[in-house]
């Protein structure tokens, strides 16, 4: 568990744009032997959710939100040596954001959790056109497709993409998640067969472990 004091210090440095201090805090945690899952969930994810809340409540500008997100994304490089060192199981997941969705950090964390559990976690990125996503799925033939949505207004785009995927790949398991679902939409994605809503990284990891065994 990341100490509350460390989290508060990290968040404060993050909001002031002090990347070096954030690197230093993350690095120190890794050296102290903190589990990368804790760093992802209790530090990165918690901070990102808080930054999102501050933005939604007009306490910070969109620029500060983007800066904080970029800093956290750059910190991922510190944990990658652990993330990418897992023994490979041969299973594959493709994770992507739909067109016009520019918030990619959540999706990338999902791909990383797959990697941490020995899967190949391909992350396609933000704002991925439907055709490109379908082409990549066809090329990699993943066991699971993960779609992440942060902005609720893009829910229709997500549903359209899911329907396209289902029509082209009838047996491909899909997992869906993201901050957009705080405002609703779970019932919409549930209508599409073979779809699971994943509410957190912990739930995702439990699902992966169950699937791998």
């Amino acid at each position, binding site marked *: 568990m990341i100490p509350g004091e460390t989290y508060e210090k990290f968040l404060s440095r993050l909001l002031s744009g002090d990347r070096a201090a954030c690197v230093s805090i993350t690095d120190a945690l890794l050296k102290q032997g903190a589990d990368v899952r804790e760093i992802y969930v209790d530090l990165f994810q918690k901070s990102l959710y808080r930054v999102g809340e501050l933005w939604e409540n007009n306490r910070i500008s969109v620029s500060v939100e983007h800066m904080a997100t970029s800093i956290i994304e750059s910190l991922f490089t510190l944990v*990658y040596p652990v993330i990418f060192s897992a023994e490979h199981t041969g299973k594959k997941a493709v994770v992507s954001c739909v067109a016009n969705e520019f918030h990619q950090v959540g999706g990338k964390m999902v791909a990383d959790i797959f990697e941490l559990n020995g899967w190949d976690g391909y*992350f396609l990125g*933000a704002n991925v056109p439907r055709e490109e996503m379908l082409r990549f799925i066809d090329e990699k033939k993943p066991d699971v497709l993960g779609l992440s949505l942060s902005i609720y207004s893009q829910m229709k785009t997500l549903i359209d993409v899911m329907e396209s995927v289902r029509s082209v790949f009838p047996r491909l398991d899909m997992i869906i998640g993201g901050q957009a679902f705080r405002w609703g939409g779970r019932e919409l994605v549930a209508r599409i067969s073979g779809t699971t809503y994943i509410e957190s990284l912990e739930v995702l990891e439990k699902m992966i472990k169950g699937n791998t065994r």
Partner: protein
Amino acid sequence: MDRQLLTYLTNHAAILVFHLDSRGLIVGANSRARKLTGLDPVGKDFREVLVDFSGSFTLDDALADEKPRLLNFITSGGLPQTYTVRFTPADDGILAIGELDQDEIEDLRKSMLRLNNEMANLTRELQKKNIELNKLNELKNHFLGMAAHDLRSPLSIVETYSDFLTEELSSQLGEEHLNFLTIIKSTSSFMRGLIDNLLDISMIESGKLDLDRSVQDPCMLIRKNIGLNAVLAARKQIAIALDVRNAIPELSLDADRIIQVMNNLISNAVKFSPQGGAVAVTISHEGGRVTVSVSDNGPGIPREEQRKLFQPFGRTSVKAAGGEKSTGLGLLIARKIINAHGGEMSLESEPGRGSVFSFSLPVRHNEHAGGTQ
């Protein structure tokens, strides 16, 4: 109310307002214009606050066609900033009002976000590939070590028995058969040397080169090494000279490994020297370091080929004088051993003027004593 609105816009809106007289001299500027340019522009010619290398802007043209102009302003931060500026005649001169293009700012914001996302994703892929490559490299070293180790024992048996047969049967065998045995022995010796080098490389690359340090007299090690190479040198009538320049302190080092380095340098010098040539070994102590140099009067190595010598299997166009074989790994290993001791290795060479290979070791050996690399 109009006046209040005007005052508010002038002082708080994100616009630049310059009040010019009819000659283009600035007689007033709002706070944003002063902040942007970082100076008090009053009294300056309007063109002085612009970055207009071509000199294409004229106030008369702007007033004549009333079209907005894209103008770059000098800023306090150093980077010019582009504003869309409209010029309007006023009762007491000209008003120049500049605005930022909000669409352009939004486009730039999106582009920055996209580029940042792409860079982050590429970094992820790059790091993943790096870790995969490291794993493959470790696997390669492991395989190399295993293969070399398993080949070494049977090869040593071939070498030992060919040696035994040469000695025991020399009186019973004909010249041709004796020659066969000599070839078997020399070839198996070369192969064992290659395997030893591969084992060393595998160990070094895996970070498992453990130094067994003890306090040693470097001069004694050199003398021992010159003795080891005496037979090889005598065959080519080469004299190996030792020059001890000053008092040499004892050093903390791995004697076997340093002998391996010295042997590599001295035997190379003999190999590349012509019949009747000269090899000189000098040792000196200066500036907290002991330096050993081995010079030969061989053909020398072209400058552009010198870097190859310290790369795995790096060979140059220069051939050994007697056609002796080389594994192409010796100097690489030698340099790694010297580096593990906290020392450095260097080469000075010129075609036609021979070569000087040197290594220096720190005297304050305790800093490195017991080090592992």
